[in-house]
């Protein structure tokens, strides 16, 4: 197992990258959410990751699994809306599943379980125009040994591919067929987070 690389995660850089992305794209996410949701996704995600950013120093001192759990809890408590428990669960479950010094195979396995936890939390599955439609392809790409730039591209393509889908879960499901043609905001933010994190890691972790 290629154990070494993923342990070189610089949490401070990673948190900064994700929080910067959420701040930079808040208006875009809100616009996507206004089309098919209640229009608060951008602001909610920005608020959550700013709350995480405010605790970067404390988080960076923790072992990776503990830090991820703490990030997840912070998101649950600060994002508001259904995104809080969903993204919070992703990070909390990832922290719960990862060993202290994970290799890529550990990360891949933990990510799979964390995404299943998100699916359970949202009572959803792939193909329902949600963040899962990005997260599952990302996990498959990680498991297949893709480079981090490749994983980021796959995430973008997967978010784009939610446009023709009809929403079945979440607020957008009320719109039914009218949700078709719009990118899912949660899928977009999942792709943004993926690209931000991928950008802080070596191409071949």
């Amino acid at each position, binding site marked *: 197992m290629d154990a070494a690389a993923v342990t070189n995660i610089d949490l401070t850089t990673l948190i900064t990258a994700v929080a910067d992305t959420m701040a930079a794209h808040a208006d875009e996410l809100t616009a996507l959410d206004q089309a098919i949701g209640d229009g608060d996704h951008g602001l909610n995600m920005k608020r959550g990751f700013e709350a995480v950013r405010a605790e970067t120093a404390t988080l960076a001192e923790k072992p990776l699994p503990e830090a991820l759990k703490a990030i997840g809890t912070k998101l649950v408590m600060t994002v*508001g809306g259904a995104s809080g428990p969903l993204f919070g669960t992703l990070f909390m479950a990832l922290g719960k599943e990862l060993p202290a010094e994970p290799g890529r195979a550990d990360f891949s396995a933990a990510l799979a379980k964390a995404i299943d936890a998100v699916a359970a939390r949202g009572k959803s599955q792939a193909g329902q125009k949600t963040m899962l439609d990005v997260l599952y392809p990302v996990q498959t790409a990680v498991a297949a040994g893709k480079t981090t730039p490749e994983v980021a591209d796959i995430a973008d393509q997967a978010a784009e591919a939610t446009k023709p889908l009809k929403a079945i879960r*979440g607020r957008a499901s009320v719109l039914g067929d009218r949700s078709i043609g719009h990118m899912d905001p949660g899928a977009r933010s999942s792709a943004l987070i993926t690209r931000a994190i991928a950008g802080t890691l070596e191409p071949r972790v």
Partner: protein
Amino acid sequence: MNNVGIVIVSHSLKIAEGTADMVRQMVGEEVPLAWCGGNPDGGLGTQVGAIMEAIEKAWSEAGVAILVDLGGAETNSEMAIEMIGEPRASRIVICNAPIVEGAVMAATEASGGASLKEVVATAHELAPA
């Protein structure tokens, strides 16, 4: 108080407050009652922390029934229950019922000393088939 507590979780604080007013007027003071609504910025939404506080406020050893409005309220309530953890978690139930009617009916049932199971069943009868 040993009657089942009622918690109202709406995206709108006004709806949560208004529903609580109706419960108080129609059912009285015999039921522990708490409510929350809105996001941290004062806009529409629900928050896990606020739901946990409301559960704490309405806590009864007989348990707590939660009435929610839209999807996020349910997801956030489930998360709040999980974070409260056992031994309390198994005595907190989210009702599948319309928020206003559900709250009034659940509180009516609770005011008579009904068990959590009975209170929840009464609310569930109001759910669309």
